[in-house]
């Protein structure tokens, strides 16, 4: 089927394009991209007043399958992705069982093939059972299609094992994504350590638990001449460590999540468990540092850390609730409101952080509208406002602190490999 997308503001950071262009899509690929294409197509989409960009790429989601289909499945998670404008997502290995062997990767691949509405990439575990003790076999998991390794949800505490992992990942040409947290320091903490934790009477998670581990992992990467990607950065010290490492030429990249540039720990004061995530929401100063890091390029990517949990898991005492919130359906709007509208990023810079850069970090040929590339495209109405209602959430879980927020920006259409995909 041939599509012609006309009159849109086409933003393609990979090719430094930001112009009114038409795109012809044929056989799943971008066939032609130029001014005023007057060609025949099976369907013509008028994108006047809209932004046309490479489909968003979320390099950090938890789709819970296999094992916790009560929280999310490949089907529901990718429906949420499509609704949020994501054509590619990379799912983390903390499933049950974890993705720590070619066998589980193969099983997941078969589920993806059957159920996925968007492209789902698989991240394999760094260590067996994500226990931090023994490395998995990166090479054979790669043969089954994993595109990166991470023990996300846990940090690899043992320095020697992390060093070996960095070397092995480099050998296998797999990006390594580090969840940086010293669990001894975070202890039984549930929110950011500081005044808010003090007044709420909750155990705090000190910022050191994040940035000390960021520092260690970057040092290990430098020592082993490996690349490293730091997941979900939340505090200003981590930002500064990464900034300095980049200046020194260390091959480090980093991501943050929309909640870390939108919310502060102040949101926790009602004990709403949908404000409980790890790393925790920090202070206004940290939010400012995260925004500045996005602006100056210290933080390369925006990833959601989409972490579905059921109502019955979250409707409990704050101490007992699991960490994490869903994010696929709100990420783009929050980025528009907090970053574009507040002049932190331009539109092309936003697309860079949400599509082009994550693709580059993962080493996949996505995040571009170059002729001949896969026709993964998102069409965005940048101004449409809507209320984010619980009953419209596509994700199987509804654990979002943004329910009933007025959001700006809405995904109008999504094409995955040249086919228009609907989340309904």
């Amino acid at each position: 089927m041939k599509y012609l997308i006309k009159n849109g503001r086409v933003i393609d950071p990979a090719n430094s394009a930001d112009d009114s262009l038409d795109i012809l899509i044929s056989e799943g690929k971008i066939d032609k991209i130029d001014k005023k294409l007057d060609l025949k197509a099976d369907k013509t989409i008028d994108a006047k007043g809209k932004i046309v960009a490479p489909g968003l790429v979320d390099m950090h989601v938890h789709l819970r399958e296999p094992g916790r289909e009560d929280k999310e499945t490949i089907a529901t998670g990718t429906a949420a992705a499509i609704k949020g404008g994501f054509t590619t997502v990379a799912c983390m290995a903390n499933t049950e069982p974890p993705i720590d062997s070619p066998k589980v990767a193969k099983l997941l691949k078969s589920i993806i093939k059957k159920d996925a509405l968007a492209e789902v990439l698989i991240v394999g575990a760094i260590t067996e059972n994500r226990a931090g003790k023994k490395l998995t076999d990166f090479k054979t998991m790669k043969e089954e299609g994993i595109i990166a390794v991470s023990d996300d949800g846990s940090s690899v505490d043992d320095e020697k094992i992390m060093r070996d992992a960095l070397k092995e990942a480099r050998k296998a040409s797999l990006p390594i994504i580090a969840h940086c947290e010293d669990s001894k320091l975070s202890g039984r903490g549930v929110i950011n350590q500081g005044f808010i934790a003090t007044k709420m009477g909750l155990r705090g998670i000190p910022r050191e638990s994040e940035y000390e581990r960021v520092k260690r992992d970057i040092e290990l990467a430098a020592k082993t001449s490996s690349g490293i990607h730091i997941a979900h950065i939340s505090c200003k010290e981590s930002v500064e460590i990464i900034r300095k490492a980049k200046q020194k030429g260390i091959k480090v990249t980093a991501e943050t999540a929309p909640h870390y540039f939108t919310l502060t720990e102040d949101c926790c004061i009602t004990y709403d468990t949908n404000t409980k995530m790890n790393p925790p929401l920090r202070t206004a100063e940290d939010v400012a540092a995260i925004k500045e890091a996005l602006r100056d390029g210290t933080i390369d990517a925006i990833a959601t850390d989409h972490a579905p949990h059921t109502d019955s898991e979250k409707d409990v005492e704050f101490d007992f609730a699991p960490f994490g919130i869903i994010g696929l359906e709100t990420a783009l709007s929050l980025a528009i409101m907090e970053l574009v509208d507040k002049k932190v990023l331009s539109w092309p810079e936003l697309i860079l952080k949400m599509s082009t850069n994550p693709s580059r970090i993962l080493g996949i040929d996505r995040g571009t509208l170059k002729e001949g590339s896969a026709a993964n495209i998102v069409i965005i109405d940048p101004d449409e406002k809507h209320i984010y209602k619980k009953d419209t959430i596509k994700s199987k879980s509804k654990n979002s602190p943004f329910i009933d927020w007025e959001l700006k920006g809405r995904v109008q259409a999504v094409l995955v490999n040249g086919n228009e995909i609907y989340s309904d």
Partner: protein
Amino acid sequence: MKNNSEAKIAWTKKDLLGLEYLSKEEIGLILYTAGSFKEVTTRQIKKVPALRGKTVVNLFYEPSTRTRTSFELAAKRLSADVINIATEASSVTKGETLIDTGKNIEALKIDIIVVRHNCSGAPNILARAVKSSVINAGDGWHEHPTQALLDMFTLKEKIGRIEGLNVSIIGDIAHSRVARSNIWGLTKLGANVTVCAPPLLVPEGIEKMGVRVTSDIDEALRDADAINVLRMQFERDEAMAFPSKIEYFKQYGITKERLAKCKKAKEIVVMHPGPINRGIEISSEIADGSNSVILEQVTNGIAVRMAVLYLVAHARHKASAGVH
């Protein structure tokens, strides 16, 4: 209430979750109301029909004898029916969740749930889930509003005012709900509050609650009109920030010698939320001495809890669902 001239406002809140969420006037109303009920507790017949036909459930997730007994007596003296439920909170057991338990209790057509819980914020979560009134009888390290109210009631009774008083709270501030509620209440009523604890038991940012912070006990005592001595819990599994009970007593224990050095040595009011650890945070001499109001606090606890039960039961609900 006969004379309502002192209390110019009406109570509108469904719940009492903490003193952080109350205005100065609301705290004043509780203390004023408690004054009327204190008179009731001194009568030959200590019962009024104010809550006849109402049911109060004491839902206790933590063992507590004194607070539960105090609430139970308070409810009974108001002629309410009282049910006590003692249970255990856990993140792992497959048992009923807090919200389910709350809704089930509510389905029994009760009016007020008095909840004690080891998790901070549990009463807030419960209050959002049920239409019944929720009274916080102590949650984690968060708040213990009725304890602070009875402390303030006792202070007012002893000294005649709260405004302008120098009150020092001494002990494990980090893990104390009594400290937090006292800080909110006392600062709202205009007292100058000092908290004094070993450095590792001073929680981060506590000064933003409007208190002076010191780890020097003599400094905390010097200008104090009153002190509130907290129970030291050496059995706590949080990394004990203090080497031993004997060492604690040496450095922070309230003794005759120490009190003698303060400016108001003679009239200083010594409070303790109980149960006291003699020879750890306070010497027997002081606990039993003329400055101590520890047993009066216990007596006043009933009047204060009667006031709180009465006010929430008769709240003029104007779209008030607690603090939120």
